[in-house]
């Protein structure tokens, strides 16, 4: 008789201890935002593998949310957020590199013309 409440208490404590993760709504929002931001600078999943990863993980996080596996959802979403941010940064760096190339081409052309003019 005395043993039953003990089990009940144990179960409650166990549940409380193990299901401590709340629904990561804020993280989901942040991740969503990071993906949108990456898309806004022109990142495309087919060209930027990090964005592809982010999309896959966000989809997984949404599925985890639906299953109420909040810890998994949070981890997937956190990784997806940084994948997306890295994708965005890579695209921006790529663009700045292209701009540098254009400038270098123009400078080479100017130098050549200057050489011809003198």
């Amino acid at each position: 008789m005395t043993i039953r409440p003990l089990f009940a208490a144990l179960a409650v404590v166990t549940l409380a201890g193990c299901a401590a993760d709340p629904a990561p709504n804020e993280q989901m929002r942040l991740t969503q935002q990071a993906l949108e931001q990456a898309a806004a600078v022109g990142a495309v999943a087919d060209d930027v593998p990090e964005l592809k990863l982010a999309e896959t993980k966000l989809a997984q996080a949404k599925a985890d949310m639906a299953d109420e596996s909040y810890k998994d959802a949070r981890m997937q979403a956190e990784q997806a957020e940084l994948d997306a941010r890295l994708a965005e940064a890579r695209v921006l760096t790529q663009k700045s590199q292209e701009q540098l190339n254009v400038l270098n081409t123009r400078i080479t052309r100017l130098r050549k013309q200057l050489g011809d003019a003198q």
Partner: protein
Amino acid sequence: MNRLTCGLLLSSLVLAGCASQPNSDTVLQQAGSDFQKVKEDSNVLRIAPKDVIRAGESLARADRLSSYWGSGGDVVHYAYLSQRYSAIAREHTELVLNEERAAKLELERQRLQLALREAKLLSVQQQGKWLEEQIASLTTTQTDRGLVMTLGDVLFDTGQAELKNSANRTVLKIVQFLQLNPKRVVRIEGYTDSTGGEQENLKLSRDRAQAVADVLVDLGIDEKRIQVEGYGDQYPVEANASERGRAQNRRVEIVFSDDKGQLGAAR
């Protein structure tokens, strides 16, 4: 007792969940070496300090968790985040460095552009000088009238006002000269010999001068810069007694203004 059970339960859950996770030690080491690299890069520290701090925090967290038995999944997770932050820090740094390089190159480009423009201007000026010499060789300076160029009789058929193709070279030089000296204006004066009636000669001389003016206008010279006069058989340069003298008198003269647009008075 309770704690232990919970812990055991948790551990077994985590273990089950983490069976497919990569080796957490390897990932942790990799994250550590990535972090070390960004931490030692003064550019990264200058440009993306926040990302470096976050990489360090995530790494510390992964490191701490790695000492707990059964938290492999969390270790891998935070090590992954740390690696991502390190990578983002590198990308941000590269971006800013590229922007700094671009700013320098842009200055260089502007400097070169200016130099090129000056070089071109110089060459145009030299070209202008060359043309001026050419024009000068075709003209004679008459103190009262300024620079005068004579287009001879051979450029027109007898009695005709149409300019022959053999005049093209001279006309093109005049056009170029006027384009390089946009303030200069010209007066085109037609003259004939004394054969024929006075009115006819006046008309022919004027038509010939107009023909030259028309070609200049067709080649892009503003007609406002061109005056046209016909003087008939007045002002002969030679006696009309010989054929040679008459040929000299049949002519079109182009009077150039000075470089400020001041033209000598018409006759």
